[in-house]
C-alpha cells in the first residue's frame, strides 16, 4: 500500500499550519517526520487521519484520491494512528479496549470478546508484544499500554501506522523495545510514519526523513545524515549539540545527603538509604529509569515528602523544615513536571515568576503585593531568559512548553542560590531551548553553586554531569565520573552493580547509541 499526501495545506484563519506539503510513504518503509514542537507535524497527521479537513491538497491511497470525513473512514482505509496521549479507557481490559468502536456481538447483543482475544494473542505472539488480553489497562506500564494502541491499529488491519511522538512517554529501555517492534512491523510490510523531534531515534529507525519547520517541508534527509545537520534543518540555524563545557572548579562540599529514606504510603522504600554529597561548582546528575525513586529524592530534599536520614546544606539540617523554609535557605528547584508542580497555568507569566517569593521584595511585603514591581521584575527575567511571550500579563498556559520551562528556570535561577536542583530540566522542550537551558545550568555551576540534576535522558546526563549517580529501585548503584560510557551507565540503570558486570547481562543499546 502506498499513501501519498499531495500539496496538503491547512489554514486556521490567517495562520497556515501546513503549507503545500508532499509526503509519500510506502509499504516496508519508515518515514520519519522530524520537526520542533509547533512545526505542524500533528496538524498534518490529523489531516491524514480525517480529524481535520485539508484547506487544499489531496490524500491518495494507492494513487486513488480519498477524502476522510473522520477517523472511522481513515481506519477503514487501512490507516492506524497511535496518539501521543493514549486513547485507552483505563478501567477496561486490553481486549475491551481493542474491541471498542468495532465490537462484535453474538445473539441478543452480547459482546463477543473471544475473537478479539484470539486476534490479540495472535498479534502479540507474532511480534513478541507479551500483552495479556485480560489485563486491566491501568495496571500496565506505559510501554505496554502503547503496544495495546499498536494492537488496536493492527487488529483493524492497518497498512499504514502513524506514531505521534511515541517515545515521549517511554523509558530508554521501552524506547529500544518500541524501535524493535517498529522494525518488525516494517519488515512485515507495514508502512510507518514516525513523528518525533528526537534526532537519535529518527536516525536509528528511518528509511526516509522529512523535516518540517513552521508548517513547511524544509527538506528531506537520509538517515545517515549527521545529527547536527538534522538539527540545523529543524531549527533553521546551527545548533551546538555536544558542547564541551569547561572542567569544574570545585569548592567545598556544602550539600550532603546521608541515609535518606523515603517510604511510600504502603511502606515500601522508594528511596533507600541514599547518601551523596555535591561540592560547590559541580554538577551531580542522577541517572536512572523513570520511577526508581529520583522524583521522590528531589521532593524529599524540598520537604515535599516525609523522609528520614539527614540533608545538610551549608552545615544546616534541611530535613524536617517546611518547603518554604528550604526555599528561603537558598534552594532553587525546578520540578519534574512543570504543568502540575511548576506553574499555575491560569496565573500570568508575571505571577508565576514570583510564585515562591511573592511576599518578599521586590514583589511585595508580608501583607501586600506590588503588581507594578512584579511586572517589572518579570519583564526583566523574561528578557534575561529569552522567554517568547506576548507579555508578562498573559496566562502562562498560553506559552509553548519550552517557554514555560524557561519561566520556571527564570524563577528558580536567581542570584545567591546555595543549591540548585532541576528534575528533567528539558523534558518536552524543543532543541533550541534545550541548548539555552543547558547553558544556564552550566553557568550556575560556574558561579559556584552545587547543582543536582535528575534526568532519564542519558544524553542530557552525559552533557551536563561532572559526576553521575545511577539510581535503581531507590538505591544508588554507584557514583561514577561524568565521562562514563553509555553501556556502563545502561547496565547500572538496569540494576547491575558498577563493579560486578558480566558479559551475559547485555542490554539492547542499539537505539540509544549515539
Amino acid at each position: 500500500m502506498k499513501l501519498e499526501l499531495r500539496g496538503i495545506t491547512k489554514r486556521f484563519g490567517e495562520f497556515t499550519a501546513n503549507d503545500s506539503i508532499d509526503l509519500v510513504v510506502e509499504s516496508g518503509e519508515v518515514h520519519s517526520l522530524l520537526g520542533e514542537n509547533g512545526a505542524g507535524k500533528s496538524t498534518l497527521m490529523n489531516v491524514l487521519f480525517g480529524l481535520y479537513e485539508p484547506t487544499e491538497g489531496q490524500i491518495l491511497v494507492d494513487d486513488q484520491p480519498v477524502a476522510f470525513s473522520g477517523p472511522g473512514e481513515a481506519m477503514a482505509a487501512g490507516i492506524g494512528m497511535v496518539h501521543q496521549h493514549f486513547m485507552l479507557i483505563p478501567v477496561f481490559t486490553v481486549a475491551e479496549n481493542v474491541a471498542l468502536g468495532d465490537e462484535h456481538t453474538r445473539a441478543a447483543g452480547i459482546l463477543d470478546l473471544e475473537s478479539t482475544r484470539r486476534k490479540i494473542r495472535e498479534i502479540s505472539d507474532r511480534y513478541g508484544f507479551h500483552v495479556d488480553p485480560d489485563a486491566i489497562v491501568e495496571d500496565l506500564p506505559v510501554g505496554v499500554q502503547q503496544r495495546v494502541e499498536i494492537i488496536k491499529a493492527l487488529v483493524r488491519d492497518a497498512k499504514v501506522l502513524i506514531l505521534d511522538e511515541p517515545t515521549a512517554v517511554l523509558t530508554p529501555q521501552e524506547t529500544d523495545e518500541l524501535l524493535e517492534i517498529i522494525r518488525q512491523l516494517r519488515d512485515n510490510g507495514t508502512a510507518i510514519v514516525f513523528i518525533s523531534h528526537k534526532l537519535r531515534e529518527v536516525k536509528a529507525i528511518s528509511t526516509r526523513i522529512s523535516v518540517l519547520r513552521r508548517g513547511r517541508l524544509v527538506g528531506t534527509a537520509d538517515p545517515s545524515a549527521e545529527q547536527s545537520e538534522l538539527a540545523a534543518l529543524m531549527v533553521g540555524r546551527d545548533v551546538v549539540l555536544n558542547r564541551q563545557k569547561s572542567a569544574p572548579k570545585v569548592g567545598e562540599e556544602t550539600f550532603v545527603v546521608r541515609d535518606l529514606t523515603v517510604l511510600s504510603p504502603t511502606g515500601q522504600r522508594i528511596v533507600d538509604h541514599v547518601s551523596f554529597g555535591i561540592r560547590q561548582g559541580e554538577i551531580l546528575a542522577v541517572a536512572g529509569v523513570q520511577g526508581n525513586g529520583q522524583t521522590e529524592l528531589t521532593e524529599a530534599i524540598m520537604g515535599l515528602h516525609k523522609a528520614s536520614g539527614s540533608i545538610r546544606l551549608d552545615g544546616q539540617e534541611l530535613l524536617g523544615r517546611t518547603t518554604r523554609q528550604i526555599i528561603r535557605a537558598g534552594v532553587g528547584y525546578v520540578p519534574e513536571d512543570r504543568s502540575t508542580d511548576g506553574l499555575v497555568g491560569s496565573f500570568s507569566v508575571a505571577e508565576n515568576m514570583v510564585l515562591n517569593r511573592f511576599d518578599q521584595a521586590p514583589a511585595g511585603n508580608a501583607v501586600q503585593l506590588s503588581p507594578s514591581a512584579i511586572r517589572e521584575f518579570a519583564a526583566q527575567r523574561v528578557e534575561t531568559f529569552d522567554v517568547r511571550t506576548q507579555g508578562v500579563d498573559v496566562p502562562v498556559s498560553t506559552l509553548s512548553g519550552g517557554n514555560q520551562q524557561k519561566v520556571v528556570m527564570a524563577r528558580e535561577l536567581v542570584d545567591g542560590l546555595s543549591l540548585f536542583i532541576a528534575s528533567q530540566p528539558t523534558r518536552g522542550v524543543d532543541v533550541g531551548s534545550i541548548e539555552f537551558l543547558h547553558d544556564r545550568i552550566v553557568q550556575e555551576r560556574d558561579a559556584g553553586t552545587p547543582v543536582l540534576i535528575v534526568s532519564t535522558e542519558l544524553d542530557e546526563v552525559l552533557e551536563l554531569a561532572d559526576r553521575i549517580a545511577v539510581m535503581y529501585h531507590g538505591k544508588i548503584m554507584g557514583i561514577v565520573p561524568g565521562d562514563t560510557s553509555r553501556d556502563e551507565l545502561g547496565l547500572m540503570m538496569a540494576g547491575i552493580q558498577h563493579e560486578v558486570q558480566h558479559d551475559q547481562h547485555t542490554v539492547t543499546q542499539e537505539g540509544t547509541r549515539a
Partner: protein
Amino acid sequence: MSSTATTERPERGASRSSAQTTSGAGSSGSVMREIMSGNGMVTVLAILLSLIISALLIIFTNQDFLDAAAYFFSRPMDALAAAWTAVTSAYAALFRGSIFNYEASSVTGMFHPLTETLTVATPLIIISLGIAISFRAGLFNIGGQGQMIFGAMFATWFGVHLQLPAGIHLLLVLIMGILGGALWGSVVGALKAWTGAHEVILTIMLNYVAINLVTYLLYTPVLQAEGSTNPVSDALEPTALFPPLIGDSFRLNWGFVVAILATVFAWWLLSRSTIGFRLRAVGANPTAARTAGISVRSMYITAMAISGGLAGLAGMAQVSGTEKVLNTDVAGSFGFDAITVALLGRSNPIGVFFAGLLFGALRAGGVTMQVETGVPIDIVLVVQSFIVLFIAAPPLVRTIFRLPQPGALKARTSADPVTQPLAAGVAASTTATADGTTHAPAGATGDGAGLADAEEEATADEADVSSTPPDSGPPLGSHPTAEEVHQDEDARRRAAGEGEQL
C-alpha cells in the same frame, strides 16, 4: 522486556492511582474555571435569555392569554395582545418595585423601591463575597447558610445581652458576627486540611447542624425572648443596630455601607494581598502552590475562615440591619442564592457586588409584581435559575446568539486532556462522527499563534503521562482528628463567652 514490565508494575500501578485522584480533582477544578472564565457578553445575554424564557412562562400562565388563545386562529391579535400586556405589565411592575416607581405620588415613594433593592441586596452581597473567595481557593463552600446562622447567633447574643455605648456595641456585635461565621467555616477548612474530607459534604452537613442548633437555642433561655413561647429572640439593643442610612422612612441602613466596604476588602484581598495570592494559587493548582512553599492546608483553613467570616457578617447585617431579632429563618435561602450570585459575578468581588444588586432588585421587585399583576414571585426564582443555568453553559448561549467560540483553542492548552484536540479524535473514532469538522471552524476563528501554542502544549504535556505527581492528600494520623478540632472549637467558643462576661 517482559521482566522489565513485571518489575515496574507495582510502582507504576501506585503512581497511576495517585495520578488519577489528582486529575480527578483537577477536572472538577477546570469546570469551575470554565464557569468563571466566560466573558461579560455571555453574562448579559444569559440575563436576557432568562428574562425571555420567564416571559414565556408568564404568558402561558396568564388567564387572559389562555382565553384569547382558544380562538387564536380566528383572531390571533387578541392572543398576541394579551401576551404582550401580560409580559409588559409584569416586567413594568418588577421595575417599579425594584428601581424607580414612576407611578408614585411622592419623591420618597419614587425612590423607595431602589432603597429596598439595596436593603435586600446588602446581606446577599456580603455572603456572596464570602462564597466567591472560597471558590477562588478551589473550595466549593455550600455552607454559607450555616455560617450565616452562626454569625447571626453570635451577633444576636451580644446584641441582646450586653449594654454598651453606641458605636462600641455595634462594632462588637459586628466582630462577633464575623467571628461566629469564621468559626463555623474554619471547622470545614480544618477538617478538609487534616483529614481530607470533602468540603461539599462537610458544609452541607454542618448546615443541618447549624439550623437545628439555632432552632434549639431559640427554645432555650440562651437566645429565646423572655416570656415568649415562639423560637424568636429578644430585639437587639438599639445600640447594636445599624442606623438608617437616609432617614427613618426607609429600611436602608449602614449595613449597605458595610457591604461596599466588604467588596473593597474582598477585591484587595484577592488581587493585592499576599494571602489572596496564596489562596488563588492553591485554588488554581494546589500541587504547584505546595511546591512553591505555600502551605495548602493552612490556606484551606484561612480561606474557609474568611469565607465563613463574610457569611457571618451577612448574618449580623441581617439581624442588626433589617430583622432586628433572630428567628430560625434568618439565613433563609441566602446560602444558596449566594452560590448563584458568586457564579454570576464570576467570583470577582466587583462582579459579585453587581450580581448581588441584580438579585436584590429581582427579589424586591418580585413582591410588587406579585401584588400588582398576580404573577407569582416564584417567577423571579425561575429568572435567577435560568441566568445561572446559562452562565454555567456558555456554549449554549454562544450557540443561540451565534457568538464566536472564544478561547476554543486556548481551552486545549489546559492540562485537562479532555479538552485536547486529540481526545476529540477518540470520541470521533469511537462514534465515527465528523468531529474534526467541528474543530476546524473553531480553529478558524482563533488566532494562529494560539494554534501553534496548542500543539506545542500538547507536546509539553507528554511529561504528565509518565510522571508521578506528589501525593497531595494530607497524611492521616499525624494531625489533630476531627474530634480534637471540635474540642478546640468548643474551647474557643467558651473563651469567647468568658471574654464577654468580664
